[in-house]
Structure formats: structure tokens, C-alpha cells
């Protein structure tokens, strides 16, 4: 499996954290560079459109504000995903309280699709994206973390607060649903 690759990534992250804690502010930029886009993809997979950059920035601000509490029992990226997920949940709760957003049913989370995106994107990719957006929130989370980030089930389970076995089932169900959607063309 890809353990050596991930261990190398973790080693780099820990070295950057040590540099930042020693006063090297450039190490913070390198950490952001390494993980910001992955966090943005995760936020986008949740249907966040307008405030992805804000959410990602808040994630890093929170993470660096409590970096002393980071324990290397998971990767830094997994820890960042966990913070981002909590921020997104807080945001969803706030939006629900404010009644500014139509609540999405857990099992029918079909995201609204911006037609403009389809004009500028490859049609095949657009169809795949539509298929992903039709997944349930949990399936979409697991699928995104597995496919776009390549995380192992054990790390995904920590982020989505589930079990490895459940995540495996969600992933395969998601894949089956996407294939069915695409085969309907």
C-alpha cells in the first residue's frame, strides 16, 4: 500500500510545523500551499460555492491557533479536514437558523447546478460532477476523500466520524450510483 508515501508527507508536515513554531513564518505558507486546494475540494464537494476561500482560511486560522494540540496520530491533512468539516457543520446550522438556505434532505441531497459551469467545462466531467452531487452527503464526503484525496478508509472514518467498514460500504455504493447515473445517458 502507499504507507511510505504518506509517512514521507507526514514527516514533511511535522518538519514544517516545527519550523513555524520556531518562528519561521514561511513554513506556514508552505503548509497552506500543501493543503489549501485539497481543503477547497472537500468544501466544494459539500456544495459550498461562494465561501470556499473563507472556509479554508478559517480552517487554517483555527488550526494554527491550536497547532500545539495537534497530535501526530493522524496526518495533518486529516486533522485539517476534521476542522473544516466542523466549520461547515457550524455554517450549515447557522444557515438553517437564519432560514437563508433551503434545507437539503439527507437522502436526496441534489445540489443545484450552475448551468454556466457546464458551458465552460468538459461535458464528460460535468456529467461526472453531476453524478457526484447526486450522492447523499455522507457518500459524497467519503467518495471525495477517497477519490480526489486518495485517503485510506481509516483516515476517512476519523473525518466523517464513522467506521472503516461503513466508509468502505459508502464508497462502493457511491461508485455504483455514479456508474448508474452515467449509464443512463
Amino acid at each position, binding site marked *: *500500500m*502507499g504507507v511510505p508515501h504518506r509517512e514521507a508527507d507526514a514527516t514533511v508536515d511535522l518538519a514544517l510545523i516545527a519550523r513555524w513554531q520556531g518562528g519561521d513564518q514561511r513554513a506556514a505558507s508552505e503548509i497552506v500551499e500543501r493543503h489549501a486546494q485539497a481543503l477547497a475540494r472537500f468544501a*466544494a464537494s459539500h456544495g459550498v460555492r461562494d465561501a470556499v476561500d473563507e472556509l479554508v482560511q478559517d480552517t487554517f486560522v483555527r488550526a494554527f491557533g491550536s497547532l500545539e494540540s495537534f497530535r501526530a496520530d493522524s496526518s495533518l491533512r486529516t486533522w485539517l479536514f476534521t476542522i473544516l468539516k466542523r466549520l461547515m457543520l457550524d455554517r450549515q446550522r447557522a444557515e438553517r437558523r437564519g432560514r437563508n438556505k433551503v434545507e437539503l434532505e439527507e437522502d436526496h441531497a441534489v445540489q443545484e447546478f450552475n448551468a454556466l459551469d457546464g458551458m465552460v467545462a468538459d461535458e464528460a466531467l460535468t456529467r461526472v460532477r453531476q453524478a457526484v452531487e447526486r450522492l447523499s452527503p455522507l457518500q459524497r464526503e467519503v467518495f471525495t476523500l477517497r477519490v480526489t484525496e486518495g485517503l485510506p478508509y481509516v483516515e476517512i472514518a476519523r473525518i466523517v466520524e464513522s467506521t472503516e467498514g461503513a466508509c468502505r460500504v459508502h464508497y462502493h455504493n457511491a461508485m455504483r450510483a455514479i456508474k448508474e447515473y452515467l449509464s443512463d445517458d
Partner: protein
Amino acid sequence: MTDCPNGLIRDQLPEYVHGVLAADAAARIDAHLDGCEDCRAEVALLGKARAAMALFTPKMDVASIAAALPAPRVAAPRVAAPRVAAPRVAAPRVAARRAPRRFAVSGVWQYAAAAALVLAVGSSALWLSAPERSAQRVADSSSTATVPGTAAALPMNAAVVAQSENGMTFGGGLSDLSLNDLQSLLGQMDSVRTLPSSDPSSMTPVLTVNEGGKSL
């Protein structure tokens, strides 16, 4: 598009697409893909899904994010520097907090409570063991407490033994006891319940009279 029945291979395809598999595992996937059209199609789909997610994700501005981050907490120099020359390092937003004070003093309260408990038990035992008080308590209790047998007809000059429910006895004076008796008494005091029971009857002492002997 159908699913390959080889679940182990399918489970590793995302890692294969990311290129994070070890060389031997990747070689096994390569060999499988040569003869499995379903898995080739799934690998292609995984690639499209990655590309789609990347395409529809806005590009992050690393510089602006980094600029918003708190400065690292750098250890203060050991040698005191003049105030004007002291480097100003912004404290992180989440500062280390002291442990709540109540945890710091809880140990002291525990010792105080233990000492008070020992004093209460000790003074009660001494009070009960005083001969004149013991006799008086037994005389008083004959009218109020439940006394089994014929203890109600207690002669005032009889040596009295008050036996509690757990078998502990009181009577006479401490000066009448030998060192072994005192040690035995201390051992029995450890088993005395110091809090009142919710059942009043359980607190009622069982009184026995010992005709003239040393009571213990």
C-alpha cells in the same frame, strides 16, 4: 458499466490512481488491468472524478490565507531585555490556559476533610468511652432507644458495655485498656460508619450488660 468481482483490486484503485501504492501492489493492479475491462473503465472514471472536482474548485490564494494566520509563539529570551528593545511577538489566538484553580486546591480540601473525619471519629470514641458518660448514655437510652432483652432494668452501678450493630463495644475508660486492646479498638474504629444511615433502626445500638468485668 459493470463491477469487477475482485473486490480487493477495486478497493485499491483510488490509491492506484493517486500513485501512492507500493511498487509490488501497483504491479499487481497493472497485471489485473491488462485483463479486466471493468477495472480499466473504473480507473478512467476515477480519473474523471478527480479532474471534475479539481475543475470546479476555486483556486485558493495561499498568500492571503498565510497572511491571516497567527504568528508563532516564540520562546521568550532568558535574559531580560530593555522594554523598548524587547521583540513583540503576537500571541497566538488560543493561549495556553492555567489549570482551573479548583483542581489545584482540591487536594488540600481532601486532606482537611480527612483530618476532620479522623477528629470526629476520635472524639466520638473518647466521648463514648468515658465511664460516667457511657453509663449516663445507657441510662438515657433505656427510655428512648430500643433495648433488646431486659436491659431496661439497668442498675446504675453496673459496668456497661455498649455494643454497636457492627460488633464494636464501648465501655469503661481508656486507661483500663492494654496496648493490645487499644490497637484492637483503633482497628474496630476504622469500620465504624460515621455518616447517619437513612434507616434509623440501623443506628440503634444493641446494649449488653457485663457484670463487673473489663468491658471490651
